[in-house]
Each structure stands twice: as structure tokens, then as C-alpha cells.
């Protein structure tokens, strides 16, 4: 599962009204959405697609992107492509596209004016390679959220923090009450993601962009970033008693009040929802950790391998339009806890946290995320560094920052 969140979103838009008769065709769709909230969201997509008269053959691959992606790539390169697949951001699909394995969706996009409906527009760029569009973004996911358990703070007798700094200050009280201050699961991407969030929130948007976009290694080794490492050190101390692996187990610690909070993307909201918790009452969300209210425009996208079978190709078109259909967008994103990629949909049903996100989005306070800025290779190295950092309390900040700067220096 893990990669889904790192998955950057490729932007695109579209409101498709794909006309023409839809004949019943089985289309296998692979993805790694297998947790409770995710599965519920996928079901919405399947329902919508089945309603077109075709049949969604679910190809869920549990484990992680690490397990799922090789299978997907092997199948595409091995000549046994699925009908459609959830995938990561544009940089990785680039090679598949260059190898001529992916389907060009430009004609559909043009016909249905995706460029006009997709919001923010930057999403589209990630789907575009050499002027052609190869993927359908389905949602906007943002990483920069702090999820707090109201119950835990009540129990510890401290007021709910309004930002990261207050949260750190409250940590000793939480600990005293036998509560893990911060839940960070054992999967490497969680540690790495949390660090990126701290970079954006504590360091600020400029710092973030200077490091990850400009790949300024000298800056990455400098005092500005050292502040971020200091915050990461706080997080490391607060998280030291977390004994779980999966991100949703960590979320579950917050849901049950065993942990004070978690830095996690908006998909965590799906878990709260499945658990029947209400935003504002049972839990509180702080976008940008309450410090820097910006939304990163990551997300999930679907890619369509080039198929020989004409019926299936047609069904791919139907699926592409279904994914961007306003109704599907609403149903899917409500379950998933993510934001729709089109602004023209009605989201009255959205809860508090989602509305906060929508408001930030409406203000245009968006920034790109690491998945769009860095290669998978660099991301992996970063993950290795931060999972080690979080697991090893004796790893010094200087050493960690030096290694971080090295990674940025060689980043591509």
C-alpha cells in the first residue's frame, strides 16, 4: 500500500461525457488500495464502471507499492498488460511511455476538455509527456496533516494544541498519561513522509522548494534545514514507543486514543470515517501542522496500457471518462478522504477536515510534492535514511543531515 501516498498526482481534468454504446467488456484494474477506507472507495469506482455496462475486474495487490509495482511493470513490459492500473507519478511512467507501452489519451482529453476541468492545472502537467496525455488523475492527496486524538489530550489534561510547537510542548504530559505522543509506523515511507511534512511546515514552502526542487545540497546541509532536523528529532523522541508497522495501525492508535497524534496524509481520514469518528468531536486535523497551511498536490492516477483488443481499448476509454465523472469523483473522494480533481463538483457531504482542505485549495495555496520533484530512486534513499533515523535514537542530527545533503546532491 505504501506507495499510494507517495504517489504524486498527475494532473488532468476532464468531464467526460463519453457518448456511444458501451458493450459489456471485462477490464482488469490493478491497484494497491486494500485498507478499509481504500477498499470502500475503490468499490465506488467499480460500481460506477459496472454501471456503464462493462465489468470491473478487481486486481487488488496488497502489501505495498513495492510488491505491487514490480508486478504491474512486469505485466506491462512482459506483454500481459491489465486494462488499467493505479500508478505513480509521471517520472516513472515516462519510461513505459517511451517504450510505447502506454496508451495515449490525448484524443479523449481534448474531446472532453480535460484541461478546462482539472484543478489545479499543475496536475495535468504530470500526466503530460511530449505534449500528450497518458493518465487520468482521480484525486488530490496531501500529506501535510496532523491528526490529533481529542480523547488522548483530554486524558492527559492538556488542551488541544493548535500547531506543531504546542504539540511538542504537550508531549511530556501525554507520555506521563501513558500515551504515545506521536504514532509513526514502521514502514519506511511514513518516516520519510513525516520528515517532508516537517520540512514544509517548519521550514516553510521556500525551504522545501529550495531543497527538493532546486536540489541545493549546500542549503540542505545548512542551518535552515538543521531546524527541520531539530523538529524531526522531537518527532523521533515522541514516536519512540510506537510498535506498529502499517500506517493504518498507527492511525488506529490515534483513533483509540492510545496515541496523541499522527503526521499522515488525508487518506488517514478514511480510517477515522470507517471507525465512525467525527471530525472536530473525536479527532482534530491540522493542515500544514498548523504552521504552514498549504496543500501539496499529490494524488493517485490511473494509467492505461496499450491494448490490442479493440473492445478492451474501448472499455478503457469508458473507464477513463467514468473516473473523471463528477458523480464518481464525489463518491470516490468522500470515501477515500481525498479531494476531487475537479472544482465543479458538489461536496456538501464533505466533513470538517475535507472542507478545510477544499478551502486551502480554493485559496490556491498549493505546492508540488516530493513525488513529483524527486525520482523514485532518491525517494527510496530518503526513506532508508529516515527509517533508520527514526529507529535509531543514537543517530546524531549532524550525521543525518550530512547524509541527507549527500542524497540531495546526487538527486535526480
Amino acid at each position, binding site marked *: 500500500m505504501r506507495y499510494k501516498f507517495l504517489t504524486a498526482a498527475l494532473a488532468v481534468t476532464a468531464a467526460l461525457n463519453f457518448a456511444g454504446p458501451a458493450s459489456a467488456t471485462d477490464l482488469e484494474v490493478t491497484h494497491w488500495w486494500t485498507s478499509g477506507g481504500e477498499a470502500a472507495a475503490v468499490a465506488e469506482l467499480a460500481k460506477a464502471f459496472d454501471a456503464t455496462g462493462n465489468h470491473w475486474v478487481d486486481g487488488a495487490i496488497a502489501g505495498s507499492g*513495492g510488491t505491487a509495482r514490480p508486478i504491474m511493470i512486469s505485466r506491462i513490459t512482459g506483454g500481459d498488460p491489465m486494462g488499467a492500473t493505479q500508478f505513480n507519478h509521471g517520472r516513472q511512467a515516462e519510461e513505459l511511455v517511451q517504450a510505447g507501452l502506454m496508451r495515449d489519451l490525448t484524443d479523449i482529453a481534448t474531446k472532453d476538455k480535460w484541461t478546462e476541468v482539472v484543478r489545479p492545472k499543475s496536475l495535468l502537467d504530470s500526466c503530460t509527456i511530449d505534449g500528450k496525455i497518458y493518465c487520468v488523475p482521480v484525486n488530490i492527496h496531501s500529506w501535510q496533516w496532523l491528526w490529533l486524538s481529542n480523547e488522548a489530550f483530554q486524558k492527559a489534561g492538556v488542551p488541544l494544541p493548535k500547531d506543531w510547537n504546542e504539540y511538542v510542548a504537550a508531549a511530556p504530559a501525554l507520555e506521563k498519561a501513558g500515551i504515545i505522543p506521536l504514532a509513526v509506523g514502521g514502514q519506511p515511507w511514513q518516516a520519510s513522509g513525516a520528515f517532508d511534512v516537517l520540512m514544509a511546515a517548519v521550514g516553510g514552502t521556500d525551504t522545501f522548494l529550495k531543497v527538493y526542487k532546486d536540489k541545493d545540497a549546500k542549503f540542505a546541509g545548512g542551518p535552515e534545514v538543521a531546524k527541520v532536523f531539530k523538529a524531526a528529532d522531537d518527532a523521533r523522541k515522541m514516536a519512540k514507543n510506537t510498535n506498529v508497522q502499517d500506517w493504518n495501525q498507527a492511525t488506529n492508535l490515534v483513533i483509540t486514543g492510545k496515541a496523541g497524534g499522527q503526521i499522515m496524509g488525508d487518506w488517514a481520514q478514511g480510517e477515522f470515517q470507517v471507525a465512525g469518528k467525527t471530525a472536530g468531536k473525536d479527532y482534530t486535523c491540522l493542515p500544514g501542522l498548523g504552521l504552514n497551511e498549504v496543500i501539496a498536490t499529490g494524488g493517485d492516477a490511473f494509467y492505461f496500457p496499450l491494448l490490442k483488443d479493440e473492445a478492451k481499448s474501448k472499455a478503457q476509454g469508458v473507464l477513463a471518462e467514468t473516473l473523471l465523472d463528477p458523480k464518481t469523483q464525489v463518491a470516490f473522494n468522500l470515501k477515500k478522504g481525498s479531494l476531487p480533481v475537479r472544482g465543479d463538483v458538489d461536496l456538501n457531504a464533505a466533513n470538517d477536515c475535507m472542507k478545510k482542505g477544499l478551502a486551502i485549495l480554493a485559496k490556491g495555496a498549493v505546492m508540488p510534492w516530493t513525488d513529483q520533484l524527486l525520482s523514485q530512486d532518491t525517494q*527510496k534513499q530518503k526513506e*532508508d535514511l529516515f*527509517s533508520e*533515523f527514526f529507529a535509531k535514537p543514537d543517530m546524531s542530527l549532524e550525521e543525518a543531515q550530512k*547524509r541527507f545533503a549527500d542524497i540531495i546532491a546526487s538527486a535526480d
Partner: protein
Amino acid sequence: MSSSQRPSKLFRNLNAKVASIPMILTALVVFVGGTAWTVLYSFTNSKLLPRLHFVGLDQYHRLWSTSRWLVSIENLLIYGAISLVFSLVIGFLLAALLDQKIRFEDTFRTIFLYPFALSFIVTGLVWQWLLNPDFGIQRVVRDLGWTSFSFDPLYNSSIVIYGISIAALWQGTGLIMCLMLAGLRGIDEDIWKAARVDGIPMWKTYLFIVIPMMRPVFITTLVIIAAGIVKVYDLVVAQTSGGPGIASEVPAKYVYDYMFFAQNLGQGFAASTMMLLSVVIVIVPWAYLEFGGRKRG
């Protein structure tokens, strides 16, 4: 294979050659060809898809300056040493105990061997559960009243590799025991009698007479264990996924992760070439000695 210029030789044993085609194809195309392919591409900067864009030894430089790779190698050495020593010692000990004309031999043997039938995935999941500090052994001991008791190898960076070894030994020693037992049973009863008449104590008989006699068994066993060690992967994935942090990473996982996860095929190929290299250094001389030179007696 034979060239067509010497048809008389080519057609000798023709059936045997035809029957060996799958083996020859496997050996040449898959094993030799696949290996060569991987080695070749380890000198490229292939990312998601293999591409012949050579970058010299860059991938290797990066590999050996990556702390995760170094940790992986270190873990493999520790895990390998533990596996070799303990599975040989425990396997032999169990076999020797079972060889004492004991009652219920079949029952004990069945008990020691059954984990071998289970996959590493299953093994990893079971031991993850047993070693879980909140539910497993640690909690049970604490519930008994020893509240400061701490046994959480899977959550402690410095000992996590031992936690994995425990599970690996659980799964694998039965087979070693079986091999050893077969070896012990293959030893002439008269040798034991002669040693007793000579007044040689049992442990000396084992050490100086029986074990040297079992040299072929030990070599076979060693090779089987060694093969398992280098490949260790599923167990780590199922039990810890390499964590906490990168404390239980192993080379096979590095290869897999960098090939598919980080989408840096070149790096993955370089790492796997290093693994191959170590395997080749150990195995080729052995294999040639064992199977190449010796003619049928």
C-alpha cells in the same frame, strides 16, 4: 554443444542429449544467459526499464557507499554465521539424540521436521506474532509478574537479526537434523562397537570418528544451508520488512527494493552481481570438486 562438423559424435548418445535439452537450455539460457544479462546491465544506468547506457562502475561505487547495503551485508554475515553454526550444531545434536535408540523417536522426529513443510511467509508471520511485545512472549512473562522483563527482538535494532534467526532456525533445523540422522544411520554399527571395545568415550567417538566419517553429509548440508542464507528474503519481509529502520535489511531485499521499488534497475543489478560474486567464489570450486571431476566408480 557439439558442432555439426562431427556428426558421428553428435549422434552418439543422441537420446540422452535430446532428453537433456531442457537442462541444457536452463543452464545456458536462464542461468548463464540471465546472469550475464544482469551483470551486463549492472554497468548501465537503467532505471525503470533496462537500457544499455553504460556508466562504468558508478553503480558499484554508490552501492558500497550506501549505509543500507553495508548494514545488509553485515546482517547477512551475522545471520549466515548463526544459521551455519546453530543449524549444524542443533541439527546434529538432535540427530545424535534421536540416534540413541530412544522411545518415541518417530514422534520427536516428526515434531522437529514439520516446520520445514511451512513457507517462510508462514514462519515469519507466526514468529512475528510470538515475538510481538504486546501479545507474545514478553507480555506473557510480564503477566507472570516479572514486569521489567523485556524481550522484543523485532523492535530492537541491535538484536532484530537474531529474532529473525530464531524463526529461521525453527523452520530449517529439522531438515538438517534429518540429513544428519540419515548420515548417522549410514554409519556402520560395527564402528560404534569397535569404539566401545576400544574404550573411546561417546563424545570422542562422535568428534574423532563419526563426524569425520560424515564429511560428505556435512558438505551437502553446508551447501544447502549456504544456499538458503544468501537467498533469505521472504522471512525478513514477512517478519520485519527490514525494520526497525533498516536494522534487519538483507542483500536480497536490497536488490528487490532497488530494482522494483526505487526503480533503479542498474543499482539492483549491481547489488545482485555482488551477491553472485560471493556465491560464485564459494560455490564454483565446491561444485566442480563435487560433481565435475569425479567419474562414476
